[in-house]
Every structure is written in structure tokens, then in C-alpha cells.
């Protein structure tokens, strides 16, 4: 696998990191108007992620995982507190400013893949490279599709790819821009067990090889266990889980699936 990485990649223009913490949330909160007044989704979230570090965020449905991911990725803005990216204010930028910063440093993998249906696999991977103004988007995209094992599917449109293949294209699209930070929202949530396992494997391999920091939102405790840190969201608050509690959770999950 490492052999592929020996190809000299064209630069995608990713800036070098300047701060010690790559992503930082300071007392972040989010409320939305509800039928009985303000509804608090997230409260007092403090969180720091170093370059290259991986963190899993788990929690029951409705605990606010996707909301937190949206805030951290600058897709939404907090109602209190602040998010910093590479030591610089991120959540306080306007939408365009956040989009540009995101394009420079981040990439995404979604549960439902979100490939552009009318672009083929190669063009889907090229898209963020073209947005960044990368030098040889076609060459880079081909390389990454080869890296995820889809070199024979370059001209295929999403509708003709299986779920697992679509998520591979999404992974290639994410890593092609050589991001400093990858946000993954339930990346195996739409796949069967075997495919999910393979995609998880590929995700962590690519992550390790690229030295990318990872924020992974998942229900999959096995996947969460592979991250360096594990945060648990409960009723809008974030708790750091210790190694032992993760193990016991993983065991419980394994037992329940065995039954």
C-alpha cells in the first residue's frame, strides 16, 4: 500500500500549520428556537485537537453529534463561544471566509456519500482540487482513485457504483486535497458490515499515511476505538472517555451483537 504513496504528488497548496492546536472549541453552545422557547442543543463545549490526532465523538441519537460536527467544521455558527482553526478565529468568519478556510485545511466524508450525481468518479474527486486551484487535478484525482482501488471505475457515474464504491470515491475526494483535518460523519453508517469494515480500514490507513487529524462521528464503537481519543456527547455536553470505559463499551457492543 505504501508503494502508492511513493508517487510524487503534485502540490495541492495546503498551507503549513502554524498553531499547536489544529482545532479548538471554547465554551461553544448552540440553542435553537423551539415550540416552548429556546432549546439547548449543545452547552459549554471545550475541546482541543492537535495536528495528526484522531478523535471519535459518540453518543445516543439526538445527543447533538451532527450539530457539533457542523459547528467544528464551520458549516454552522455557535450561539455562544468560539471555534478556532489553526489557532485563528473560524466560527466568527462570515460564510465565505469559513468556506475558504475549510477548503484550505479540511475535507469531509459523509454517511450518504454526497457525490455529485452528474459527475463521474474522476470528476467528483477533481472537484475540490479544482476549487482549490490545484495544479494537476486530473493526475491527482486519478492517483487517489487508484489508491482506493477504483482505477477501473474512473469514468463511472455514482449511480453505477455500489455503496462501498461510492464511499471509496468520497474518501479519495477527501484525501486528494491533502487536508490537515478530516471530518467524517458516520462514514460506515450506510454500508453493510463487511463493506463498513473495509471502508473503516481504508479510512484509518489513509489517515495514518497522510498524517491527517480526524474528527469522527460514529455509532460504531469498534471504529471509535481505533481513534486516539474518544469523546462522548450526552444531553448536549461533551465528556472525555477513559481507555477502560471504551473497552467495556466495546465489549458490551460485541456481546450484544453476538446475541
Amino acid at each position, binding site marked *: 500500500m505504501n508503494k502508492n504513496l511513493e508517487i510524487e504528488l503534485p502540490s495541492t497548496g495546503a498551507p503549513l500549520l502554524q498553531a499547536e492546536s489544529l482545532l479548538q472549541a471554547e465554551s461553544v453552545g448552540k440553542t435553537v428556537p423551539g415550540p416552548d422557547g429556546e432549546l439547548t442543543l449543545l452547552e459549554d463545549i471545550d475541546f482541543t485537537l492537535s495536528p495528526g490526532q484522531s478523535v471519535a465523538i459518540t453518543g445516543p441519537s439526538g445527543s447533538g453529534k451532527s450539530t457539533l460536527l*457542523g459547528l467544528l467544521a464551520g458549516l454552522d455558527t455557535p450561539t455562544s463561544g468560539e471555534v478556532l482553526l489553526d489557532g485563528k478565529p473560524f466560527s466568527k468568519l462570515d460564510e465565505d471566509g469559513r468556506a475558504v478556510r*475549510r477548503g484550505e485545511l479540511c475535507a469531509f466524508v459523509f454517511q450518504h456519500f454526497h457525490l455529485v450525481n452528474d459527475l463521474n468518479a474522476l470528476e467528483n474527486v477533481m472537484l475540490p482540487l479544482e476549487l482549490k486551484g490545484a495544479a494537476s487535478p486530473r493526475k491527482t484525482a486519478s492517483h487517489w482513485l487508484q489508491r482506493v482501488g477504483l482505477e477501473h471505475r474512473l469514468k463511472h457515474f455514482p449511480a453505477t457504483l455500489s455503496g462501498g464504491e461510492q464511499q471509496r470515491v468520497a474518501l479519495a475526494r477527501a484525501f486528494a486535497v491533502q487536508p490537515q483535518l478530516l471530518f467524517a460523519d458516520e462514514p460506515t453508517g450506510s454500508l453493510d458490515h463487511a463493506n463498513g469494515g473495509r471502508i473503516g480500514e481504508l479510512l484509518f490507513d489513509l489517515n495514518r499515511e497522510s498524517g491527517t487529524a480526524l474528527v469522527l462521528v460514529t455509532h460504531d464503537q469498534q471504529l471509535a476505538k481505533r481513534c486516539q481519543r474518544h469523546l462522548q456527547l450526552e444531553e448536549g455536553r461533551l465528556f472525555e472517555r477513559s481507555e477502560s470505559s471504551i473497552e467495556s463499551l466495546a465489549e458490551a457492543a460485541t456481546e450484544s451483537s453476538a446475541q
Partner: protein
Amino acid sequence: MTNSWLRPWRDRAFQLLALAISIAGFALSSIILLHAELEQRFAVRTAEMLGGELALTGTRAPEPAQIELIKTNATATVVDFSTVLVLNDELLLVSARAVDNKYPLYGQMQIASGRFEGTHAVQAGPTPGEVWVADQVLDRLHVQPGDELNIGQKKLKLSAVIRQLPDQSAGFYSMSPRIVFNQHDLEATGVLGPGTRITYRQMISGDAGQISRLQKNLEPTLRPDQRLEDIENAAVRSMGPLKQLTLWANLAVLLVSMLCGATIYLATSERVAHRSRLAGLLRSFGAPRRQIISRLLGSEFIAILPASAIGSLVGIALISILRQSLDWQGSMAATSVQWLTILFAPMVLWLAFALPRLTALVRVPAIDVLNQRNKPKPLSTNIELTAALGAPVLLAGFLTSSLADLGNLLALLVILGAGLPALLWPLLKGLDLVSGKLPLASRLALRRLSRRPSLTLPLLAALTMAMAVLALAGQTGNQLLDDWRSRLPEQAPNHFVLNLFEKDFDTFNTWLEKQEAITQPLYPIVRGRLTEINGVPVSQAVTKEKENRNEALNRDLALTEAADMLPSNKINEGAWHPAKNTVSVEQELADRLGLRLGDKLLFITSQGSINTEIASLREVDWDTFEPNFYFMFAPGGLAEQDVTWLTGFWLPTGDGKRLAELMLQLPHITLLDVNTLLNKANEIIGQASAATALLAALLMLAATLVLTAALLGGQAQRGRDNALLRTLGGNRALLYRVTWAEFITLCGCAALAAMIIIFAALYPLTAQLLNDNPTLSYWQLIPLLIGLGVAGVGVLASRGALRKPALSLLRDEA
């Protein structure tokens, strides 16, 4: 469940669909009603010209058995013949008409109490002992109301001056002036001897059913000299504006149906995309097809009903207001079938355009829920296309029952409307292939368009049709108005002078200058009778039946010569005066007499005869207020004949003394006042113009609606695309550029196709509507402007999609 019919209204796609149905209801109801009003006016006008809905004409009185058949209907009888009035050594050939007390069945007679008095309308003819005469009789015989005139052996009192009879044919001057008296006096005149050429005309009124039954019963009883004419086959010349407007309204029905259909199709596509998940869920819960139909389609149908009803009601209200403002009397003209059509037409459109798409919901497989797929497979494209193209055609045919009139245009629109987007498709694909070197925004826009045929092609077709219709409606509507205006310019001649001699010119011109009248060219007139065609006497050359129909053979004709053709005339065959001694003949008369190019004609005149050869056949517009002639000779063709002159002039309104002064100076001339005819024509044109403007506005409204639907149609997909671009780091400027490029390309292609349609459709359209060749005008470039405008509005309308939060992808709202 109580508010299940309200639920669909929460969906924007449904709101648009409902709006389209409302506009369809509004446009169709107003056009159907307007069409019915116009048809009725057209029919009344034709009936006025014919004297009734049915006319039985013969050289003898109808048989008792025929009278028996007719007696249940309202009838009026006139007896027409030519006779000579003699007074103080003056002889005057007149067209006499003896009328019964029922005459006229339709319309009114316009009469005046003296030569230069104002005109007023009356409903019944002269009483026994009275005679009414045309102005010329007063001038030629120097008589005035109150005097007595001898018609044959009967002395009648001259009691009024005739200005217009309702069934007066379009030629407003005649060599033989008209007189009218009561049938009660007919026998006493003793003029009906064996040699007199008489026409008995029995005019009958009744509804369509009665007339058709009567016609069927009368046909077998007709004598060889008798013929039946109904409104359909009446040899009435084109009714000008009314006829054109009726055609234009037919076209409008068709186009509005197509445009509203296109909107319904686009809005339904969006609606189906929104509802397919529910359909899949119902399927996965085990709902049978029947249940899905009743739950999804049933509620859709019920929810659409109020939209349809509101639209129709607004249309009905609009026409009521229009009727009031145009002072159209009586109850609405629409028949019960037309009212039913108003009620159901929008639903027919919905069934044709929406149902094939909606039925896709029934076929959504449960697995699509698991696959998160939200685009159900459509029914066969062919079925959809056939339904979508066939529905408005059938509907329009049903509504207007005059597809024959518009057949070629219709075929053209359907072929081009459906075919052009398909032809443009390779162009879009080609652009995509060579887009590698284009900027990113253009590339993305091209890919969005060229790789979503199911979204782009209907959009392209709808935009193309809407643009073509807007431009065609604008151009033909404008041309119609121009055409009408040019027929009746503000200072159209309102008086005509006949029997002018060359020695009168100085006196006449001095008088004209004094009155600040606006003059027209002078035409030399020679009275002549056509006697031989290619050396064969007319009586043998033309069959008896044809001869009966041709007044031209039974009377003196006004022959003229002219170097230039009249502007409103058009050569259909041959050339305008290629040699001396040639003549140009009016087309309809030539057809009736069986005349062809090269035929040799002999006319007998007071000075001998004229031999001539037909060099051209000419189409004449009888509705213009300028002199028209059946026979126009090449210059010199009337040399050495007794020539008098004819001209027209416009006289500003003022008192009748001015004309009396002219008559005093030139007592031998014949002066015709056509102000009454002119006012009537002006009134018709005014109403037709208002109706045209209304129809054009309706067409434009429908076209705008299609454009709106087209713009809103792809918004959901555009929103998803933009959210993803934003997530991947695309800034707002890029999203705007992509959206602009997408709309400019789409609208550019549509404008191109629309311009092709306009150029192709303009020829049959102008030939049909205006009887003219198309002219180049700025209207043909309108699609480009519309395209630019639509692109701008499209980008503005896409602001919502541009602002679609990237977060929606995480929440799977897309």
C-alpha cells in the same frame, strides 16, 4: 384527515402546481368565454349580412310546402329587382327592395330625415305608401323627403334617406342606388312583369338545431332556381378584424394550454420528487397500489380542485368586466358545452400533464426507501410526451373546432417544440466535451445541464415554447393592431364622389381646399357590361347557376384604369399590366366566372365596346375604405370612352351645409357619406383591439408562469449542488458564477431554438392571420432579451439555493 386537502399546500412545488392550474383555469375560462362572445358577434354579423341564419333565394316566391316548413321560425321576406325611376325627364336605374313588416331580422337600418341630416337607427322598414331612397336618388332626381315618387304605376311618398341596410354588402357604392318600400305596395307597382329579373329572398332565424333540421328538410324541395345559404357557407367576404380575432383567439387557446401544461409538467416533476419517499414508505408498509393511489393521487386531486375553481371564477369575472366596459349587451354567449369545458379544462390539463408523472409514485419500489433514492422512474417517456403534446392539441381542437384553420401552424409548433430541444441536446453535450479549457464555473454549469437530461430537456422545451410564444404573441398582436389601424387611418375618406367630370375639377378642388378636406386619388370610371368571354356570349359561357350568383353579370360595372395598383390589393397570378390593352380582375369574381389568365373579355359601353385580355388576378381587401374595382385596365385601356371620375375625401366633422354647397355647385355629382359605415368599422376595430390586447396579456401571463416554473423547477437540486460545493470550500462568488453560467447557457439555447421556431412559424401565422408575408422586426430578437432577463431572474430566484446551508448535507435535508 379533516385537513388532508390542505396538507399538499405546504409544499412549494404543489403551490406552483396549484398556481399553474389556477392560471390555466383563468386563461382558459377567459379565452373560451371571449371566444364564444367573438363567435357570437361574428355569427350575428354574418347573420346580419345574410339577413338571417338561413336564406332561401329564388327567382320566384317559395312553394307553399316550403312556406309550411319555414313557418315555425321567425322569417322576413324581401323582393329585390331593378327598375327605373322617371321624374322630370330624368331616368335613374335603381336597385329596389320590397320588404315585409318583419324585415330586418337582424341588425338595424340606418336612415336620415334629409340629405344632410344626421343618421339614426330604426328596427322596421317603411310603412305602406312610403319609400326610402339612398342619397344618390335625391341628388340625381333632385327630390327631397316629402316628395312623391312613382315606382311603376304606384305613387309612393319619399319619407326617409337610407344610409345603411344591415345586409348591405361590403361594396359601399353602387352604380344603382338603393330604394326600399313596403311589400304591401309591390303588386300595385305592376313592375313584376314576366321579363323582370326578380330575386325572392326568404330570411330565416333560429338556433343551430332548428336551422340544421330545416336545412335538411328544405334541401329536397329546392327548385333549380332556388338556393339555400347558411352562416357557414354564406358567400360573405372575410369579416376582417372579427375573423382575424377569432383565429387569434383559437391560437391563444392552444398556446395557453401548452404553456400551462408545461408548467404543470415541471411543477409535478418537482412534486413527485418530494412525494416519492412517502410512496416508497407506504409500499414498504405493505400498502397496495389502490391505497397509494387514493392516498397520494386522491388527495392531490381534491387539493387541486379549489385552485382550478378560483382560476376559472377570476376568468369569468374578467370577461364580465370586459363585456361591461365594451358595452356588449345580452347574456354571456357561451353554450352549456363551453361552460362544462371551463369547469373541466384545467383538470384535463392536469390529467394529461401531471398524471403520467404522478403515476410514477405508484410504481416506486420499497427498496428505494432503503437506497435513499428520491427520483422515481418515470412512465415511458413516449407515453408522457404523447400525453403532454396531445392534450393541448385535443383540448384546443375541442374548444375551437377549427383545427383545420390552424393545422399547419399546429403541426409546426408541436414538431419544433418537441424536436428542437432534442436537436439542441447534442450541442450541449458537445459543449460539455470541449469544456475542459473553460473556467471552473462554466465547466460545472455545463455539466449540470448536459448530464441531467430528465431535468434539462423539459426545462429547455418549456423555455423555448414560452419564449417563442411571447415573441409570436407580441409580434402578431402588434401586426394585427397595425393592420387594423392602417385600414382605418384617422383621416380615412368619409365621403365619396361619383359622376365627376373633368370640367368639375376646379370647382371641386376649390371647395375641398375651403373645407380643409383631405383628398384621395381620382379614378376614371367607365360604365360597362361584360358580354363575352373568349368570344362566347356570357349567357353561354357562364352556367345559369353561376350567373344567378353573379350580380356582376346583371348590371353595369365600374371599369377603371390605373398605372399603379392600390396598396391594399395583391397580385395572386400574372403580372400588373404587362402590356396595353390588358386588365386585372378581382380574384373572387374570376373564380366565380371561371376566368383564367389570358382569357379575352368583351365589354359593351355607351361608346361601343372594349376588348381586353386578363393579365393578372388580384386579391382585394373589401374592408378598406378605399375604392375597389373588379376590373382595372392598363393606362389607355379606356381611351375614347365616356369617362366620369370617382374619388374620396376626408371631411372634418361639421354641419351639412358644406355638402349642400357642393351639391349646389355640382348638382350632377353623386355624393356618398360613409361616416356611418366608418363608425361601425371603427367600433369593431376598437373592440377587436381591446380583445387582442387582453389575449396577448393572457398569453404573456401564461408564458411568464412557465418561466417561473422552469426557474423554480430545479431549485432543490441546485440547493443540494451548492451546499456540497460550499462544504468543499466553494465561496459565494463561485456559486453565483456557476448559477449565472447555467442560466445563460440554458436561456441562450432556448432563445436560439425559440428564434428558429419564430422564423418558421411566422410565415404560416402571418399568412393565416394577416393574409400577408411576414416582415422582419425587432420582435424576432425578443427571445434573446427574454433569455437575458430570465437568466437574471433565474439567478435572483436561486438566491435561496445559493444560501442553502452546507449543514443541510449533514442533516440529510437534501
